[in-house]
C-alpha cells in the first residue's frame, strides 16, 4: 500500500507497469481515433483491478504507435509468464488481445 495515498492501493507488477508505461507513452503521440481507442481499451483492461495500483511518475516521452505496441506486447508476454494469480495472467492476456486486434486493423 502506498502510505501517501488516502485510499488503499497495491504495488503494480513490474512487467504490467512496463507495458502500461509504454502504452501511456504512445498516447502522447498524435493518433487516429481508432488507435487512440484501442490503446485506451488495452490500458483500461490493464488497470481494471481493485485495489488500484500505486501511482507512478507520469510518462513524458512519446513513443510511436508501432514501436510502443510491439514492446508492450513483449512486456505483456513476460507478464503472463510471471503472473502470480489467475486474474493477473488473464488480464494481461485480454490487454494483449486488444493490442493484437488493433495491430490487425492498422
Amino acid at each position, binding site marked *: 500500500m502506498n502510505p501517501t495515498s488516502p485510499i488503499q492501493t497495491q504495488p503494480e507488477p513490474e512487467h504490467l507497469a512496463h507495458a502500461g508505461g509504454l502504452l501511456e507513452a504512445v498516447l502522447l503521440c498524435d493518433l487516429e481515433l481508432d488507435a487512440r481507442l484501442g490503446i485506451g481499451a488495452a490500458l483500461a483492461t490493464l488497470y481494471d*483491478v481493485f485495489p488500484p495500483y500505486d501511482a507512478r511518475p507520469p510518462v513524458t516521452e512519446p513513443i510511436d504507435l508501432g514501436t510502443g505496441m510491439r514492446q508492450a506486447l513483449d512486456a*505483456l508476454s513476460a507478464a*503472463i509468464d510471471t503472473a502470480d494469480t489467475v486474474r493477473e495472467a488473464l488480464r*494481461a492476456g485480454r490487454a494483449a488481445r486488444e493490442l*493484437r486486434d488493433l495491430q490487425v486493423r492498422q
Partner: protein
Amino acid sequence: MTYRQEMGRLAREIAKLLSEGGRVPGEDVRAALAGHSSVVGLLRAVQADMAATEWRGVTDLSQELARQPRINDQPLTSIIQRPTASRAGELWARVAKTATIAENEWHQSTLASRPYGNAAWSEIADIASLSEAIGLLDGDIADSLNAAGRWRDAADFRASQSGLIAIAQEVRRLAGTGPLPTAKDLQPITPETVILAPTQHVIPEALEHLAVLVNSANNLPQPK
C-alpha cells in the same frame, strides 16, 4: 502439482491463447474443441460448488456455462498425445490436459478445504475471469470451425459467446469490489475414498479423465 498450481498454469496458457490468438488450422480443430470442452467442464464443476452464493449473477454464470457447446469427437488421450500443426493447437492441447488435471484435483479435495467466505469470492473471481476468456476464445473456435466447413458447430459457439462474456464480466467486477484474499490450497481426500458418480452419464467422461490422469502421472501407487 496442486489445484492452485494447475489453475495458475491453465490461466497462463489461456492468456497466451488470448494474446497470440486461438484460431487453428483444420488439423487442430479437435485439439481446440477438446481444450474448450475441458475448461468448460472444469468451470462448471467449480462453479456448481460456488453457486450456493445467493447472488443472482453467480447462478446466471452457471447457466451460461451450461449453455456452452461441448464437442468431444475424439478421445482426449489421443488429442493430447498427437502432434499439433500449429502453436495455437499446441496451446489448446495443453489447456485440455491442464484443465482435466485441475478438475480432478478439485473433485479429489475435501469439502472442508474448499474456499469459504471471502476466499469463495476469490474463487468466483477466478472462475469468472476464465469464463470471460473462454467466451472471447469462442469466436476464434467459431472462425476455425467455419474455415473447416463446420458451420452449424460454429453457429453454436457464436450463439453462446456474448451471453457468457457479459455475465462473466459482471461477476468478475462484482467479486473484485471486495477483498480477494489468496485462497489456500485444497486438501486431498484420502486415496481410498471412493468418489461416487452422481449419474451414469458422467461415466464416459470420467473414464476419459482417468486415461489422461494415468498418462500424465509421475508416480503411480502400487496396487495393494
